[in-house]
């Protein structure tokens, strides 16, 4: 009896990730009402060496490089990613360069992370991939590399998923829905504060599992461009996003030759090394890039709190080098300032937008601040910002949990 049943059991066990992948999709209209507990069937359990908690990470050149990362509950011995440009045949493979244990807290179950750093990719190409750990293979997913040059793509930005598991999951589903409906969306820039306490593995573990919900129904994964929030302290952030703790607290992601996103760290001092690095980056990138964006966690022109202490250092540099857009988080609200230069409203100035609403409870904003008058805007709701980047303009839209648009604003390219 057992012998007869064994093949059946084995086949069911091996196809478990596939079963997970084919969980019933959630209708768009149901996203704001779906129960967090009901979404578990859409996530991969962290068991044995089943690849789970996948993410694609972008830093550096997004046209030709990406890191594919996942977690396993057991250490395993062979971890590889199978990939290719054809969804049917994953003709290439790469062994993970990094296989280590997460820094879990005392008494927690161990877990392991695996990073496969892909290089030499073709720009503007769909890369299909499956993660394999000791023979256990994930379903086939894919992501698209950034174009070598030019525009015509979109990026999602959002931050602050640190509490509110159900709303966090709902917002992840919204991101997946946007990616499904808009094939031009390439990446998801997270503005930081993923969880409440960056030193607590259990919180990261759940965030990682829930992050799977950002995967579109057809298996499309949006590469994440990570930012370090003030609640993400500790080593786990660097382990999860394959960043060097000493040299990659701030970094640049080049989305082709024409678009660059500079990620800054508002936990580190603004002055000294970071300021020198930022100035060098902006000086180098500005003449070469049609669009130059910055993202960081603590806002320079906040809608709720006081300005970050980084403002006197960062803002003059943004002004000097004509940064096009500043993406912020931390405030738990929504805002778009008027264009600002030299601390004043200026038609050629820089627009600061965002403030974070990926699940965390929202706060009341102070709409009386000068940078929300005569065209600026502030409000409170869970949201992401969708940026449509073309040669002549960049359109930013705040998309709410129910798919409604709260703000639609277009920036013209600098001459």
């Amino acid at each position, binding site marked *: 009896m057992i012998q007869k049943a064994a093949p059946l059991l084995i086949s069911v066990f091996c196809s478990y990730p596939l079963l997970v992948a084919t969980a019933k999709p959630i209708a768009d209209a149901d996203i704001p009402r779906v*129960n*967090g*507990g009901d*979404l*578990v069937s859409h*996530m*991969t*359990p*962290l*068991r044995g060496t089943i690849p789970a908690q996948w993410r694609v990470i972008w830093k550096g050149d997004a046209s030709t490089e990406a890191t594919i990362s996942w977690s396993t*509950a057991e250490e395993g011995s062979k971890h590889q990613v199978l990939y290719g440009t054809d969804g049917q045949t994953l003709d290439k493979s790469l062994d993970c360069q990094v296989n280590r244990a997460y820094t879990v807290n005392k008494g927690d*179950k161990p877990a392991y992370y695996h990073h496969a750093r892909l290089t030499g990719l073709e720009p503007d190409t769909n890369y299909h991939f499956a993660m394999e750990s000791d023979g256990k293979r994930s379903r086939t997913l894919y992501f698209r590399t950034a174009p070598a040059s030019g525009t015509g793509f979109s990026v999602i930005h959002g931050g602050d998923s640190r*509490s*509110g*598991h*159900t*709303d966090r999951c709902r917002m992840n589903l919204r991101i997946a829905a946007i990616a499904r409906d808009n094939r031009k969306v390439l990446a998801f820039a997270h503005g930081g*504060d993923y969880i*409440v*306490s960056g030193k607590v593995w*259990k919180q990261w*573990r*759940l965030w990682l*599992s*829930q992050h799977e919900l950002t995967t579109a129904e057809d298996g499309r994964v949006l590469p994440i461009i990570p930012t370090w929030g*003030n*609640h993400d302290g500790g080593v786990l952030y660097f382990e999860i996003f394959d960043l060097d703790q000493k040299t990659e607290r701030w970094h640049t992601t080049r989305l082709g030759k024409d678009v660059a996103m500079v990620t800054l760290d508002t*936990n*580190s*001092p*603004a*002055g*000294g*090394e970071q*300021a020198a690095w930022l100035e060098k980056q902006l000086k180098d990138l500005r003449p070469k890039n049609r669009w130059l964006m910055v993202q960081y966690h603590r806002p320079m022109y906040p809608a*709720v*709190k*006081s*300005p970050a*202490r*980084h*403002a*006197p*250092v960062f803002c003059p540099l943004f002004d000097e080098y004509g940064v096009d857009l500043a993406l912020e988080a931390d*405030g738990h609200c929504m805002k778009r300032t008027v264009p600002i230069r030299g601390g004043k409203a200026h038609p050629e100035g820089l627009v600061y937008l965002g403030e974070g609403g990926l699940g965390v*409870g929202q*706060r*009341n904003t*102070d709409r009386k601040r000068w940078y929300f008058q005569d065209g600026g805007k502030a409000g409170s709701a869970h949201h992401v910002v969708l940026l449509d980047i073309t040669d002549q303009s960049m359109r930013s839209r705040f998309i709410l949990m129910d798919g409604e648009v709260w703000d639609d604003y277009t920036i013209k390219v600098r001459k």
Partner: protein
Amino acid sequence: MNPKLQRGAISLMSVVVLVTMLGAAWPVLFRDGSALAKNLEKRVWVEAVDDRAVAAAMEAELYGEEPPAAEISTHDPGPRIEFVRKADRISAILCILIAAALPFLTRWRRQAAWLCLLPSLWLLLNASAVAMNGGKAYAELAIPAHATRWVLPLALGLLVLMADRMQYTVNWLLRIACASTFAIHGWEAFQLHPGFQDLVFIASGQLGLDLSTDICHILLRGIGLMDGLLALSVLCIHSPKILCWMTFWGLVTAFSRPLTMGWDAWPELAIRLANGAVPLLIIGIGLPALIHNQKSRERSPNPEPVSQES
């Protein structure tokens, strides 16, 4: 302490407590609320969306952890969050009113000085909320770091209520608070607190100096050591010269906030005013510290504190 000096000390304390309260209440009335309210709001919200039960249900399924004890149950947090925000504003206004009215109330009835406990408790609770909320460098050290600001109203109340009997206690309350604030800030400076680095970078930039990171680190480590020694000295010896320097340094660090961040950051100065005022008050009270030789006894206007206390 002679009556004139005592009146001066009480006046100074009253002014500093009022300014501290204005600085602490400003974000409550015009910005995002106090640390305490943020903590309570988060608790109310997390409970309303039943975050723990949702997380436990997911953890049970995904990682084989213990399933949640109860079913997920959610409710609208709106009314309770609104209540917390109102209570926050009311308590901030109440503390300001107490601080402002205290000099007049205590002239009418000395027992009114007990009201000083309220601002003291409110500031202490806020310091503990900063520690619990996290998300800031060294937030966990907020209670000892903020000691001067939450001890000062308490010391004021004691001095007004029982000046003759409580000078010794007030002397030690202020010395311990001062030592605690200087020691923690010294430790943070020595550990190269990112915020302190920016104060140094921005201030030097304003002076036209291009400071390297290495120099900034050396400066901060030096400041950290100095603050540590000052903290030790305030407990061990009664030296008006050292206390004068602490007053000056406390005010410099307090003023550094608006000078580097702009005058919109005046509440940051206001809440730190006590760091400069407390050493000055210790000079005014003039009682000895742990180690006091004959010379310091002679200098001290009140050399027999213990017998006075008893």
